């Protein structure tokens, strides 16, 4: 059996509440500057009361930066994705028309819902915005972007709630190893919407203050909006010659909790299985993991389940690598989270820097695990990144350092 093709990460792009490009994200993370503020841009009754990670760039500015005519219908998730995907493609320095089979694998949960909810009634009464009707479906962003950015090959979209982008990244690697693609632009996007704000509020898991991942007194999440993409390439000379990759994607795993529609099983069975698979695919032992970017939404249920799963995987509290949830920086960016946090994982490897878990003061009773509360320089060879979504969908990715 041949050893599997190494998957090189050759480009990244990200836009969120803490930066409009990857370098800005590194800066914010290093300085512990979060982007969570009272909602100000959305037309919702929760504006000013609930906190979120909003991107302070209005849609018309996004249109301008992407060179899209204002008369064309592009929803916010698509626009954000365009910025992030373009940054990744430019960094990777790839020529999309060089004959290599390139796929665009995106992820979203909101899709065009921000436009649909805004125009739900006025579509019926006025023709003014009807050109947005075709933008509702989840698959529109990927197709519009593939057209805009000139990606010639396979296009698809994954939608598995909060694990979506991690699954898109995993699929890209699998497609390359299966010989279906030579390279893949992978990631996800979700803008803020009244739909998701009200949804998590109705579930009583939207905190009314800054979220507190892994803290005993956590009361829920803050939402955020973001888009992030990676370029993955088969690390063979003819596809990615003479470049040191940013990192390697060495492991991935997806499993289903099969416990409940939204809640995780108390001991995080699905989370455990996904992480175990990722390490197995990478051939990396738990003790070799240098940093974990946890899912850590700060909901009572997730952090308890994830904590249990981490302890089960690593054996005991003292063997747990440094870990943190970065969602107190960006908010929970739903379908984009897996890709945003993949970017953070690669930054951690490039800069040998583990990031802080903000707003922590007291460990969860019974688990007694303590995340990093300050950014920390340390030797990191492998980073485990977790993303767990509704429907029991659990995904873990393992990124490994590219040595010069």
């Amino acid at each position, binding site marked *: 059996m041949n050893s599997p093709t190494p998957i090189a990460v050759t480009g990244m792009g990200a836009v969120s509440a803490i930066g409009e490009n990857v370098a800005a994200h590194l800066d914010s993370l290093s300085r512990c500057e979060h982007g969570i503020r009272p909602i100000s841009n959305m037309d919702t009754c929760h504006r000013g009361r609930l906190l979120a990670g909003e991107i302070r760039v209005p849609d018309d500015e996004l249109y301008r930066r992407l060179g899209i005519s204002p008369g064309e219908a592009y929803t916010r998730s698509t626009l954000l994705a365009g910025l992030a995907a373009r940054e990744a493609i430019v960094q990777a320095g790839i020529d999309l028309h060089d004959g290599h089979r390139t796929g665009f694998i995106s992820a979203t949960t909101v*899709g065009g*819902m921000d436009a649909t909810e805004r125009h739900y009634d006025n579509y019926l009464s006025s023709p003014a915005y009807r050109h947005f009707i075709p933008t509702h479906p989840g698959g529109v962003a990927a197709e519009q972007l593939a057209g805009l950015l000139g990606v010639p090959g396979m296009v698809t979209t994954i939608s598995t709630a909060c694990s979506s982008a991690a699954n898109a990244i995993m*699929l890209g690697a699998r497609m390359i190893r299966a010989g*279906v693609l030579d390279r893949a632009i992978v990631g996800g996007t979700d803008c803020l919407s009244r739909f998701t704000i009200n949804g998590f509020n109705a579930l009583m898991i939207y905190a009314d203050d800054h979220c507190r991942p892994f803290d005993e007194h956590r009361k829920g999440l803050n939402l955020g909006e973001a888009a992030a993409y990676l370029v993955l390439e088969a690390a063979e000379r003819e596809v990615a010659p003479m470049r040191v990759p940013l990192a390697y994607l060495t492991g991935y795993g997806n499993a289903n909790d099969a416990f409940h529609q939204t809640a995780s099983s108390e001991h995080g069975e699905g989370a455990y299985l996904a992480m175990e698979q990722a390490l197995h695919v990478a051939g990396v032992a738990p003790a070799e993991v240098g940093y974990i970017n946890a899912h850590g939404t700060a909901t009572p249920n997730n952090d308890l389940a994830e904590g249990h799963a981490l302890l089960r995987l690593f054996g005991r509290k003292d063997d747990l690598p440094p870990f943190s949830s970065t969602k107190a920086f960006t908010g929970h960016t739903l379908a984009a989270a897996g890709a945003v946090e993949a970017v953070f994982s690669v930054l951690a490897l490039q800069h040998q820097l583990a990031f802080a878990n903000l707003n922590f003061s007291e460990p969860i009773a019974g688990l007694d695990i303590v995340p990093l509360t300050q950014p920390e320089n340390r030797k990191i060879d492998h980073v485990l990144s977790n993303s767990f979504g509704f429907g029991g969908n659990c995904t873990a990715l393992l990124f490994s350092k590219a040595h010069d």
Partner: protein
Amino acid sequence: MTKPIYIHGGGCISIQPTFQPDYFFDTFHSYASNPVPALEPDYKSLIPPLQLRRMNKSMRMALFTARQALLQAGRENVDGVIVGSGLGCLRDSERFVEAILAEEGQPLNPTPFIQSTHNMAAATIALSLGCKGYNMTYVNNASSFESALLDTLVYLMEHPDRSVLVGGVDELGDRTTLFWELADYLKKDGSDTGETAAEGASFFVASAERGESALGKVTAVECCVQPHDVEDFIRGFLRRQGLGVDDLDAVLLGVNGDGRYDAVYESVARRCFPRLPQMVFKPILGEYDTVTAAGVFLTLQVLARQSLPPALLYNGIHPARLQRILVYTQRRGRNHGLILLEQ
């Protein structure tokens, strides 16, 4: 390159009585309305009532047809569940938006929000079966099912000892239908443009081994959003399987009665398949993003029974044999998909 996979069981809910065990497209309901809702089975025959209560139509249709597929395949469980859905759980999405617009600021019922999540059908199947394996949902317009199928081929190549439930499901929504009318998607009385909107679910049990019995084989699948040249797309796909158009015994085409977009089928039929029997399925099953899954259900039955329903024959040419059938579909000029099915 992927390897072929074998289908051991299938289930289908559609606007025809496809959920009935012996149904083989010999009689049809015809519909004057547009859109057309799916004919529904007695779900309780396969799903316990206490589970049904938390299931919207997509979830019920998906789980029921998944269970039918398992029964036909003689299996209790699978290792993975891979689903395609163009619009996900549309009715619950509409319900939640309407609740927000009417009552934001007052307490909102959380159930429609939860049930609007696109991967709920896949989650429901996993929960019902207790399947903790790979679970994926593709939401990519009219290539959602093809994406799920491609993932299945890759997954079973990675894990040749495993099995997967793969399928497609889509449901209608009242307000969305009005939007479609405004966007000029829908066929109106007597018009030769527009689609007949429908809904349904089709699920299959797939594995990498033929085993004792299989309904048929999915040899390969490819999609392209908008090929430069559709004929090249088709010939290239066949060439990659070591085949030419002369190696096919029949084709299933996605002709749907929308005169604006059906022309590509005429052209491709004339240039690539002039001597082949050409079947259609959308005139009796309607149009929705994942209706191709129902087309695959039909084709597998054709291969298993070695017989072609005469009413679905588009060009009057009868098959000499039925071992290899190509499915070619597109929707509104986009999401061109090819699936090669064999005995």
